[in-house]
């Protein structure tokens, strides 16, 4: 393993991400934060929604932000770099096994996902005003969930970025990301689906469900919460699956 090259690749991506920091933050955080303001502040202050909803919403918004940030941080540049200009070729020729380039992309995606998730907490806190009750008493569970969520979002970005062409980006958002967000138990706890038993089972294929439930379980658990062991197990399984799939697709895309 050639660490010098790996860190050089990482620093290239970090350099580009830093340059695009503001658009990146707006792209990934504006929509979740607007949602937070409307539902967590406007609707609760006007008593249309009970104040306790604030604590249910925040972990979900954090999950969505992390997933969007991770997926986009990896998928969007990859789609651009793999199109006919083949910008990525320079890095494929770097003296390192090309699989490590994919791993590096996942690493930079994880960093961006974690960053987005951590920015959301204070931002949402400010937007929601008083009444938010978060419990940071389980730091290890919280950290483990954060890492696993960051990994699945950027590994998912790798798989998506290597299977979608530039003309299909819009399709990817409307077909993959939009339903994922709506049925990701981000805006409501999983237990709220108990009146829709079929849906409650069906959403279990959605990785965002485990992200939302995991973060909710770590920060503001509700009755009927998905058990933490199940969440962690599912996240690990999804991580491995998406990583293997992403690496495979990357190889197929990178070598002709």
């Amino acid at each position, binding site marked *: 393993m*050639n660490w010098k090259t790996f860190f*050089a690749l990482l620093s*290239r991506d970090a350099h580009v991400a830093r340059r695009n920091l503001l658009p990146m933050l707006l792209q990934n955080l504006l929509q979740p934060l607007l949602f937070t303001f409307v539902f967590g502040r406007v609707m609760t202050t006007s008593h249309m929604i009970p104040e306790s909803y604030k604590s249910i919403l925040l972990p979900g918004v954090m999950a969505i932000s992390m997933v969007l940030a991770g997926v986009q941080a990896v998928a969007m540049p990859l789609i651009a770099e793999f199109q006919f200009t*083949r910008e990525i070729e320079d890095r494929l020729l*770097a003296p390192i096994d090309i699989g490590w380039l994919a791993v590096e992309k996942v690493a930079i995606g994880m960093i961006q996902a974690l960053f987005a998730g951590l920015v959301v907490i204070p931002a949402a806190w400010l937007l929601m005003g008083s009444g938010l009750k978060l419990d940071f008493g389980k730091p290890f569970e919280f950290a483990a969930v954060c890492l696993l969520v960051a990994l699945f979002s950027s590994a998912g970005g790798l798989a998506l970025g290597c299977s979608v062409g530039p003309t299909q980006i819009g399709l990817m958002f409307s077909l993959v990301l939009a339903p994922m967000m709506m049925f990701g138990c981000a805006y409501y706890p999983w237990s709220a689906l108990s009146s829709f038993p079929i849906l409650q089972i069906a959403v279990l294929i959605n990785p965002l469900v485990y992200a939302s439930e995991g973060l909710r379980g770590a920060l503001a658990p509700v009755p009927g919460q998905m058990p933490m062991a199940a969440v962690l197990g599912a996240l690990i399984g999804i991580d491995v699956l998406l990583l293997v799939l992403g690496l495979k*697709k990357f190889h197929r895309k990178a070598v*002709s």
Partner: protein
Amino acid sequence: MGIGIRIENLRKVYDTPPPMAARGAGFSFTPVKSAPKKKLEVVALDDVSLEIGAGEVFGLLGPNGAGKSTTIGVLTTRTQPTSGRAFIGEFDIWKEQVKAKRLIGVVPQRPNLDFALTAREILVFHGAYFGQSAREREKRADDLLEKFKLTDRATHMVRTFSGGMMQRLSIARAMMHDPEVLFLDEPSAGLDPQTRLLLWDIIRDYNRLGKTIVLTTHYMDEADTLCERLAIIDHGRIISQGTPAELKATIPGGYLLRLRFDRAPEELMAELRKLPGVTEVRTADHIAADVYADRGGQLIGPIVNTANAAGIELCDVHIAEPSLETLFLHHTGRSLRD
């Protein structure tokens, strides 16, 4: 000490649409599984064997789609051969990719510069990928920018660059880590004559340092002036190889007269074969004839007379002096630019 290249029985069959020459334009996502498609098979390389000496300037000459870029793709680890082996120095390119990659620099057919970076950053990061120290890569980047006359644009994003500037920067990038073997895929395509001469000088200078240069081209003059040895490639096969002089010497007669008549019956061909100095006559489309001979213009008179005697009109004449172009025509029956 230079590094040589060896290619043994290389074969490449694409079962998906082959990438565009510089590889790319990939849409691998097929959302609709339509009726079973005919299995696509494109033979890009068919049993190619080559030896390129250390410190040599070697040219791969052929028309578009001949297999030049696929050869470069295999030699630069970017294309997996279907069968056969290739070596850079002692390293099997496919099995010891990382070691092979350290030795090579690649200038692609179409610039694939990193659009997210400035010109200087492209060079500096490239140096970093190859493990150069910060001081070393800064210095080399500045030297190369100077050499390629890009210093005043060093801090600009490359997406604003003209085609020629991108090409120069691509070459600078390929030289950044001082590779032993430099691959250039159609380096002068789209360059103005002045930049082309600058490019040739740069290639010669780099070769003088003992580096091996492999370039593909479909320009005869480029192959002729730049390359010490050549392989002519068409339909994935090596048709002929040797020094430019050796190759030209293999053309029967040397001169090629391309003739067009209002009709060209076999009797006329037989008469043409009897003319002095003619070594070979080939006919095409019942109106055209390629005459290989040891003389050029002097043959026109006798040809006109022969045609007149048979009541046939000569419509068009083109005389080609001994060149790689005529060599290519001789071997493939078509012009390089067809």
